[in-house]
């Protein structure tokens, strides 16, 4: 397997894993509140629809669109997506944005779904339309970005099968691990994964945009790991710089004994 193929499979795998963690939070919360059968069925239909999308859009893309055009358009899409993931991960790592807490999102979703009117699970333990729809929508919406990544990376490198297999492996692996650890999803270092994916997507985006316009990289495919290393270094520098922009903590105001007694009364 070439360097590009390995990097491509890794990028698709990590991106799918990140989105899968987010989808799994919704599915687990739905299963716990509205019944597991509907949650699992909704998720399965969602994953099936995403797979059909990859096949329906990806195969014609690979066969009928000229490769140079495909690489420029797809490289641009990857750049937009990669830069926005990278920006978000840098803002979270530097303390400017709060990190995503899957545990908190799980608790919020459970509370929201419990409050919604629905059937009595003890009397009808089989199906729940709301549970099905929530799980289906969660998987479909979180999976759309994965579909775009699979299509773009797979089509531009003419390795749609490999990209789809890497995504499927992530879905199976994270799905199984998620079921085992259930409510411990907050333990997964999601921001680290997001930054890694952002760096890889940006690297592939730059690589394909240049190749598509006729600017060939020295070393051909070997340029991809060099770009990844370069963007890793840039991201580290930007995180450090953004941390230095944080406001210093104001010193605590000394409280006199009289003031403290006044507060006590």
């Amino acid at each position, binding site marked *: 397997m070439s360097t590009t193929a390995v990097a491509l499979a890794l990028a698709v795998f990590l991106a799918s894993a990140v989105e899968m963690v987010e989808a799994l939070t919704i599915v687990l919360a739905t299963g716990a509140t509205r019944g597991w059968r509907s949650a699992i069925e909704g998720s399965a239909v969602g994953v099936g629809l995403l797979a059909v999308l990859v096949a329906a859009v990806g195969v014609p893309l690979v066969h009928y669109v000229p490769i140079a055009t495909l690489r*420029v358009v797809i490289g*641009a899409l990857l750049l937009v997506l990669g*830069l*926005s993931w990278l920006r978000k991960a840098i803002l979270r790592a530097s*303390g400017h944005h709060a990190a995503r807490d899957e545990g908190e999102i799980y608790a919020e979703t459970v509370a929201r779904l419990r409050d919604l009117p629905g059937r009595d699970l003890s009397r009808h333990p089989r199906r729940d339309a709301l549970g099905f729809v929530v799980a289906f929508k969660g998987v479909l919406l979180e999976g759309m970005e994965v579909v775009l990544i699979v299509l773009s990376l797979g089509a531009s490198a003419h390795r749609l099968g490999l990209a789809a297999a890497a995504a499927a492996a992530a879905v199976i692996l994270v799905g199984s691990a998620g079921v085992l650890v259930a409510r411990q999803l907050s333990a997964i270092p999601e921001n680290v994964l997001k930054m890694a994916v952002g760096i890889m997507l*940006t690297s592939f985006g730059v690589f394909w945009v240049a190749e598509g316009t006729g600017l060939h990289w020295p070393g051909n495919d070997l340029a991809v790991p060099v770009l990844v290393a370069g963007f890793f270094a840039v991201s580290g520098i930007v995180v450090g710089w953004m*941390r230095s*922009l944080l406001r210093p903590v104001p010193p605590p105001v000394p409280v006199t004994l009289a003031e403290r007694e006044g507060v006590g009364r």
Partner: protein
Amino acid sequence: MRDRARRLAVGFGRFWWDFLIGETPELFVGTLLIVGAAFLLRHDRAAGLTAVMLLVVVFLVASTYRGRDKSATRTTVGRDRDP
């Protein structure tokens, strides 16, 4: 039927708008400029690749700076990093 088609079209458009532009229009504009620069400099490999790389870094830094939280303090970072 027509209402459903309209809703689908609006949903499809909204998805692409959020995906491509959303809260970071500067990254969309930056990407267009990067593609444009690559096309313009495609006959000069060294200049073309340098310009593309520089523009990517400039837009990443500018967009991240724009998204900073001016009220965030250093305690947030310290607390997150504590074991």
